[in-house]
């Protein structure tokens, strides 16, 4: 990078993103994770979650959970915010945690009436639960420390096809608009006596509602495209990089990758604790 245009943000010099990307939460500006170059951050995240997905030994779970804990300390996110975001339990996870200990394994551990608790099943359930928490928390903390649109642009800078990124940015932009539209239409329907009940006619109502949204989106898209064209969309394939990497960014990336690698090595028992 030889020339730097003046509008580029220096992630270390300037107070970082006051991110409202994924959540609308305003962040205090100085946390380490928020100033980290988004490209490095995405790579680091990839390394961490893959390493966690590899874990096959329940003894490593404390280490797995230490990762999001460490990240949380440097994220500038409040504990209550993190916990609030976690309240979306996966039904599948809950079912597996309840089912595996009784269904998998040969070594009985405890017996409750007709039910036998197996060692192997319990270990599998623990692993799934631990990895789930580790990955979900890590990803959530990392993604909430930068606006989502910035993260998407970072992914484009890392080589994700521009068709995908442009599509994702537009989808993200209009999700809120469409959610408002849907809300408004439902209010209008309710004011005409509609109740969301289980009956065949309601399926038709929902189909028509969705169909109307699709029609309007289709029409709106053509206007958006015209507006984009008028402002030069597609005139040039050259996009100046919005990011720049400093020594600190690389150091953090190296550190993160080292942690991921260590976890992988522990798991392959190449390094013994």
């Amino acid at each position, binding site marked *: 990078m030889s020339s730097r245009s003046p509008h580029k943000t220096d992630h270390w010099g300037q107070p970082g993103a006051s991110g409202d990307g994924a959540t609308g939460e305003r962040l205090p500006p100085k946390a380490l994770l928020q100033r980290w170059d988004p490209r490095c951050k995405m790579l680091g995240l990839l390394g961490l979650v893959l390493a966690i997905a590899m874990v096959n030994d329940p003894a490593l779970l404390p280490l797995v959970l230490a990762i999001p804990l460490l990240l949380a300390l440097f994220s500038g996110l409040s504990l209550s915010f993190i916990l609030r975001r976690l309240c979306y339990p996966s039904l599948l996870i809950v079912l597996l945690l309840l089912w595996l200990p009784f269904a998998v394994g040969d070594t009985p551990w405890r017996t409750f009436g007709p039910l036998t608790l197996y060692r192997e099943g319990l270990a599998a359930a623990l692993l799934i639960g631990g990895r789930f928490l580790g990955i979900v928390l890590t990803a959530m903390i990392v993604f909430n420390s930068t606006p989502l649109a910035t993260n998407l642009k970072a992914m484009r800078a890392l080589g994700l096809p521009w068709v995908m990124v442009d599509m994702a940015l537009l989808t993200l932009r209009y999700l809120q608009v469409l959610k408002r539209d849907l809300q408004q239409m439902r209010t209008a329907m309710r004011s*005409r006596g509609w109740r969301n009940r289980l009956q065949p006619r309601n399926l038709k109502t929902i189909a028509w509602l969705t169909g*109307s949204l699709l*029609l309007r989106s289709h029409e709106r898209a053509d206007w958006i495209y015209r507006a984009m064209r008028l402002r030069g969309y597609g005139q040039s394939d050259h996009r100046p990089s919005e990011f720049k990497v400093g020594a600190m960014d690389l150091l953090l990336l190296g550190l993160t990758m080292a942690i991921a690698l260590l976890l992988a090595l522990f798991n392959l028992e190449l390094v013994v604790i």
Partner: protein
Amino acid sequence: MKPLLTIKHLSFTYPDPALPDGAGAIRELDLQVGAGERVGLIGPNGAGKTTFFLLTCGILRPTAGEVLLHGKPLPANNFTPRIALVFQKSDDQLFCPSVWEDVAFGPQNLGLNNDMVEQRVKEALQAVGAETLAPRPVHHLSEGEKRIVAIAGALAMQPELVIYDEPSASLDIRSRRRLITLLKQSRQTFLLASHDLELILEVCDRVLLLDGGRLIADGPPAQIMADEELMQAHGQEKPHSLVPHQNQHHR
């Protein structure tokens, strides 16, 4: 006799901290609307007009105070077919493939049989003069036609009170005139919010000026809207037709 609509010490604030301070809030509103009254509602953006409407028809739950219909409180956080709402954007309201089906949507939800639904749809379309639109696909209507159909959809509920939120917004001259004629002929009680002051002057017999969630003025439109000082203090303009004309350009 009890008034049709009674608003008692009504207050409401949005819990969303992202909103600018107090935007759209309602503060200690007291008001009565009698049957047959046509009430206009004016005020700057963020004065609380839409909030007031959503509270009146029970979509929002007030933080304090109450809304009474014939002296009885509305069922909390519930909708009543006795109050109908016509939205600012007709597209928000119309979602069925054809006009007939859209107007029939409300009556069907009231559990009426097919004959009665048909009767209601016919009457409603007749009332707005849109019988010929019945088989047309909603998505191909003009903005003015959409507004008319949305009004028919509200009237088909046979409400006691109709609330219009910016009914003349984005209408062309002819559609606006058609709307005004329609409202003038209507014997319905209605509340109508608009920035189109001339429209209010023409169709309403009472006007409320709302600002910062408070009721600033209440009275005959020609009187309140002629008060230049009052109007300007609350971000309004004296309607052109009320300004004494030196150059008699209206002929």
